[in-house]
């Protein structure tokens, strides 16, 4: 093709030349050009290669429906974007674009061998072959297929750009700023409605941009809208999806059109809730289906007009038109008037409006009615076309360098369909149009089927004297789907349009069938001898055009991806070299290595410190719920497995919570502060779940109870002081609480002050040592911690993390819900019979404990394990068997839930769920590991201080 810049016209700025490169070669365009218009102006016709056959392809369209002209753009390190449409890429100085899916070059592409062999690759060919020999699939066929796959290259570096997002609300959302959308916006601009007007192009105007007669009106309209305080115009913004209750997703492109990269967000996601939606998205012209219709230079008639009128670019020196719709005639007249050479008008219809014929004659354009193009000469660009009178086989050749197709119009019903509005078929348009809305939504202008482009006829494949079975007449250009592929699918028994789509991949390319769906339907309709509405319409799914992952997600990247919850003491831990672990949403200090210790060494030291003197632990993440009201005890009695009514104020109790299915879901020590006030604790990960569960029962099942639940997890920082010297350290700092063993026994709570700050002081222990958990208002957590560290120096106070906490509690046989239980464990399985109120008539989960399988023998029960080799620490998760002399698959009787080196005991200890484990104390079990089988004996879970002497001091 030999496109060129027209001497005048267009909306480009002829005083602002822009330099850019395509495939390494420099070109000049004008400000306002797209990459497509600029390359066309430079005489470029070859833009890309098709997906399957690697056929040379040019520009088909002028907008976002373009299936062929896909390019990659590089904007510096990490800023590589594949698969952009040249018709949407705005040029700027320094733009670096490359073609795709070709090797070694666009002109000489070895992949084009596929085109020569195309007869062997019809639709669905891969279903039928690559099966023999079987082993070749993994090693040869599939790798080869994958190598051919894909369009543009994948990015390889992390994108340095940022993305923004927002919610927005309006009374009226108008999608599409063509004449219909602008008119609607103007009408609403005088009202009190909040209006948002969205358009995907860089400039509002839509179809008016290609109609100079409307430019004056356009300028006035835009000025009026810009002046209207109630109207927000979002250009370069694509409304990509229409979701429930008038919720529309849109992406605004902010920086890609600028020559320089910046810190500004590249794109912004708009999540818009609209009172009413007006869809004014216009219509897309349909290509025609005939042999050679994919040759570069064959394009939509409307696109040629847009290139000429909007960009001042003639797509060729001599253009022919193949029309079945009047709109093509008008395009050609406009082109002719703009100074573009017209070779001929060919129309497959015989009955053409006389006024059109008269205008063609007046403009000196040759007209061939009842004729169809049957072939195209030229590989990288159109050199000539072959045509034939319909029904005849007398062929005529017409020289031209571009062929325009006017196949009629397809209303853009995509968003309407997303909204689940219904569609109706219109035979006269050969298209679906909106019927009944499902939301407060209207479709206006061309996308509703309401337009004045004139009449047209509907064809499936243009008449041809050639053997239909051997022509290459494309329907889906990007995916290389031909009319014959669709016929083959029908022949092979695929009858639903969804099947035909999936079998042929018609409409599944990156343009999502914008130019191919309707032609595919017509061809299938003919092949099946069924009316189009009887074979259905494939569903439109968001997004309307492809949208970057970054826009949809990128605002929530890095630190903003998901909050990491930290305690008031976290900063101290970080400054003091803690190694952290993530527990639920929190980050917790796992251990505090000193002098290059590994975890093992650090944990051993921390354990020795707690057992020997005193350790300090940040327990702030434990969930806390304050339960207040006259019925507080009654409520807890119904929720927890054990009795709560008799608990005296000032005392604590271990609470075990089941789900209604009888399995353990949470536990924690809770305190009664007053007859009508409890301070509950939950596991770190269970806090929100437990509160929600309790609210559910309270509000739904027992609304008569006078009790209220308040989360106080974050009201208190909790510092655990554990070890024989804990009391000595604490005593001088506490006011108003007698810490003596008699006055403040294990499992008690007192309120008072510490260092002048109010505290709820728990005497509890998860370590088996004398211990306190000091609750203070959160803001003082760190200061208290630092004070204790300072004052505790004389006792060698040692901060410890979750790992040491785990070891110490395991030595005492305390379970961790979620580690030693897994959602399938009952209190009995866990050996917590003592925590189940046998006399209580009911509690959550009680009935389920009587189900047949729950009372049956053979359940996995929690036990202690002592390895025969005391130095051997079993791996957590390791499986247990009773008999090692069995083939795979082996019968497993349990698994190791917790396993540690116990520094205190000088040996390893473990906990395990073992079938019938409670009855197997003293029996030997086996743990087969890849490196060998370990032997262990089932034991009590309490490995240290079985009498609890260390607690009650």
């Amino acid at each position, binding site marked *: 093709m030999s496109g060129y810049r027209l001497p005048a016209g267009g909306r480009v700025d002829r005083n602002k030349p822009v330099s850019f490169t395509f495939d390494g070669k420099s070109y000049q365009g004008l400000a306002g050009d797209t990459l497509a218009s600029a390359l066309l102006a430079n005489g470029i016709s070859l833009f890309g290669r098709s997906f399957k056959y690697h056929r040379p392809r040019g520009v088909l369209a002028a907008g976002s429906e373009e299936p062929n002209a896909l390019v990659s753009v590089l904007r510096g390190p990490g800023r590589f974007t594949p698969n952009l449409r040249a018709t949407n890429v705005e040029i700027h100085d320094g733009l670096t674009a490359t073609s795709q899916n070709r090797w070694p070059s666009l002109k000489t592409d070895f992949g084009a061998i596929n085109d020569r062999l195309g007869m062997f690759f*019809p639709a669905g060919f891969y279903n039928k072959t690559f*099966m023999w020999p079987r082993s070749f699939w993994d090693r040869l066929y599939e790798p080869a297929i994958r190598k051919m796959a*894909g369009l543009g290259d*994948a990015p390889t570096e992390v994108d340095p750009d940022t993305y923004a997002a927002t919610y927005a609300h309006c009374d009226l959302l108008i999608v599409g700023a063509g004449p219909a959308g602008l008119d609607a916006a103007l009408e609403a601009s005088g009202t009190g409605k909040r209006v948002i007007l969205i358009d995907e192009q860089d400039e509002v105007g839509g179809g008016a941009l290609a109609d100079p007669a409307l430019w004056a009106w356009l300028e006035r309209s835009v000025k009026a809208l810009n002046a209207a305080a109630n109207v927000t115009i979002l250009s370069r913004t694509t409304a990509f999806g229409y979701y429930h209750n008038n919720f529309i997703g849109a992406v605004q492109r902010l920086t890609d059109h600028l020559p320089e990269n910046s810190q500004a967000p590249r794109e912004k996601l708009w999540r818009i809730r609209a009172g009413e939606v007006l869809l004014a998205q216009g219509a897309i012209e349909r290509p025609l289906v005939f042999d050679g219709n994919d040759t570069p230079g064959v394009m939509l008639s409307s696109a040629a007009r847009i290139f000429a009128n909007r960009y001042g670019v003639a797509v060729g020196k001599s253009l022919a038109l193949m029309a079945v719709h009047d709109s093509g005639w008008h395009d050609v007249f406009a082109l002719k008037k703009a100074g573009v050479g017209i070779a001929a008008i060919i129309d497959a219809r015989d009955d053409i409006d006389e006024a059109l014929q008269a205008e063609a004659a007046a403009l000196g354009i040759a007209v061939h009615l009842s004729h169809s193009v049957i072939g195209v000469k030229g590989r990288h660009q159109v050199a000539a076309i072959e045509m034939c009178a319909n029904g005849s086989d007398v062929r005529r050749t017409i020289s031209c360098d571009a062929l325009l197709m006017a196949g009629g119009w397809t209303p853009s019903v995509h968003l309407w369909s997303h909204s689940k509005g219904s569609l109706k078929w219109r035979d006269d348009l050969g298209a679906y149009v909106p019927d009944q809305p499902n939301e407060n939504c209207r479709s206006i202008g061309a996308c509703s089927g309401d337009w004045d482009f004139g009449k047209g006829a509907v064809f499936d494949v243009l008449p041809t004297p050639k053997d239909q079975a051997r022509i290459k007449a494309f329907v889906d250009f990007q995916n290389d789907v031909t009319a014959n592929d669709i016929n083959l699918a029908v022949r092979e028994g695929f009858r639903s349009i969804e099947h035909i789509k999936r*079998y042929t991949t018609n409409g599944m390319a990156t343009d999502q069938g914008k130019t191919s769906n309707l032609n595919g339907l017509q061809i299938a309709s003919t092949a099946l001898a069924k009316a189009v509405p009887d074979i259905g319409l494939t569903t439109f799914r968001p997004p309307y055009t492809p949208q970057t992952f970054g826009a949809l*997600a990128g605002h929530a990247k890095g630190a903003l991806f998901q909050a990491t919850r930290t305690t008031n003491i976290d900063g101290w831990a970080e400054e003091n070299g803690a190694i952290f672990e993530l*527990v639920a949403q929190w980050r917790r200090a796992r251990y505090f290595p000193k002098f290059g210790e590994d975890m093992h060494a650090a944990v051993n030291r921390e354990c020795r410190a707690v057992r020997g003197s005193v350790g300090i632990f940040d327990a702030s993440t434990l969930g806390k719920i304050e339960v207040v009201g006259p019925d507080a005890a009654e409520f807890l009695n119904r929720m927890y497995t054990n009795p709560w009514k008799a608990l005296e104020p000032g005392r604590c109790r271990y609470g075990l919570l089941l789900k209604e299915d009888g399995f353990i879901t949470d536990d924690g020590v809770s305190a009664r502060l007053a007859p009508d006030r409890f301070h509950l604790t939950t596991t770190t990960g269970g806090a929100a779940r437990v509160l929600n569960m309790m609210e559910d029962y309270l509000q739904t099942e027992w609304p008569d109870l006078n009790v209220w639940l308040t989360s106080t997890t974050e009201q208190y920082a909790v510092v655990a002081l554990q070890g024989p010297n804990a009391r000595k350290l604490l005593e001088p700092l506490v006011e108003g609480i007698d810490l003596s063993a008699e006055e403040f026994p294990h499992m008690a709570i007192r309120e008072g002050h510490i260092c002048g700050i109010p505290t709820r002081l728990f005497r509890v222990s998860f370590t088996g040592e004398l211990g306190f958990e000091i609750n203070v208002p959160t803001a003082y957590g760190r200061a208290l911690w630092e004070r204790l560290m300072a004052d505790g120096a004389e006792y060698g106070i040692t901060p410890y993390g979750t790992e040491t906490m785990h070891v110490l509690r395991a030595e005492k046989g305390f379970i961790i819900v979620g580690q030693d239980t*897994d959602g399938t464990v009952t209190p009995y399985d866990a050996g917590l019979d003592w925590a189940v109120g046998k006399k209580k008539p009911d509690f959550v989960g009680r009935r389920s404990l009587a189900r047949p399988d729950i009372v049956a023998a053979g359940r996995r029960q929690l036990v202690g394990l002592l390895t025969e080799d005391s130095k051997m620490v079993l791996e957590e998760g390791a499986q247990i068997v009773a008999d090692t002399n069995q083939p795979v698959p082996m019968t497993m009787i349990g698994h190791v839930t917790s396993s540690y080196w116990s520094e205190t005991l000088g040996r390893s200890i473990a906990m395990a769920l073992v079938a019938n484990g409670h009855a197997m104390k003293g029996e030997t079990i086996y743990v087969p*590991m890849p490196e060998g089988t370990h032997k262990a004996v089932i034991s009590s879970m309490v490995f240290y201080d079985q009498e609890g002497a260390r607690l009650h001091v």
Partner: protein
Amino acid sequence: MTRFSALSLFAKALGAHQDWPEQWPDAAPKASYDAIIVGGGGHGLGAAYYLAKKYGITNVAVLEKGWIGGGNTGRNTTIIRSNYLYDESAHLYDHAVKLWDGLSQELNYNTMYSKRGVMMLAHNVHDIQSFKRHIHANRLNGVDNEWLTPEEAKAYCPPLNIAADARYPVLGAALQRRGGTARHDTVAWGYARAAAALGVDIIQNCTVTGIRRGADGAIEGVETTRGYIASKRVGVSAAGNTSVVMQMAGLDFPLESYPLQALVSEPIKPTFPCVVMSNTVHAYMSQSDKGELVIGAGTDQYVSYSQRGALHIVEHTLAAICEIFPIYRRVRMLRTWGGIVDVTPDRSPILGKTPVKGLYVNCGWGTGGFKATPGAGDLLAYTMAKDEPHRINAPFNLDRFRNGRLIDEAAAAAVAH
């Protein structure tokens, strides 16, 4: 049945592909069948095929309300794996994986089973414990599953971000090398073609509207939009619509149907060599033979049959993907879609007999049914042919919800502390 091969493809090409026969005839319903399968997805078509192939029951109809393979078979992200924790699950899914291997040859239809490996990421200590438990259980069950360090995981999947300061750092991964993907549509089509060749009627656009039971309560047949069809054996394999069909037989089921979304990117050149799953971050991704990044999103929170999901689910999913694979932020999402997944209380399937004589059920696969396709089909066929479950699917009975013998894989991976 015309045998598919490179040779037949070549021969037909010379005739411009004009004489390919129908892959399966579009059957009209007969008055009665020996067995009826309700639901023309991969599972149902597979059941019909195995009934005919292995158990000699060829007078079989598959009733599909729309087009075959149009439900979850054609809407899922095609992940295949069998590294489940419990013996019951491991045996069930491994039965399927063994059938996937060689399915193309068995059906003479390339299902494109690609053993690309399925890697599950561990992001915290709890994940590590849970994955190790899986790995050891799998090893003793003869199911491959191995532990990878973060560096090994990165080597297996180079786009993976293993930076220690990531919000959800990768602390390791469990890899099942036999896991992978297959081409979803071809599984339905391949079974349909092979079943039809054995005499099975594939009946599309045929919605079951009622179930007829005799005086003794046993199944007599089904009412459909295309008339009454008699059969003493009816297998329901209707995924999200199972509750609706079961209610026609007077059975209430422990099922809820939720919308599940998935999405693909535009095709890009090969960049992602395996399947990666992160249950903690909710990200599931592979790359298709066509070059699209195939991404599984989460379910919406409410019961729905609308096949329409919410935007915020997609936002969360892609945020997760971009955290784990930050090089893909500039890649573009091409298409999203929704399916309806039927979920049981323990999130394991129900596959076996029902309280109604002659009525069998295969449902409750939730988000993971595709991987089980050949196994579920085979076991449903066995159960229908013998009127008793195979030992592999026997544990997946309805009784477990009464007696408490649940098979709760998700609970086993539950997070607390």
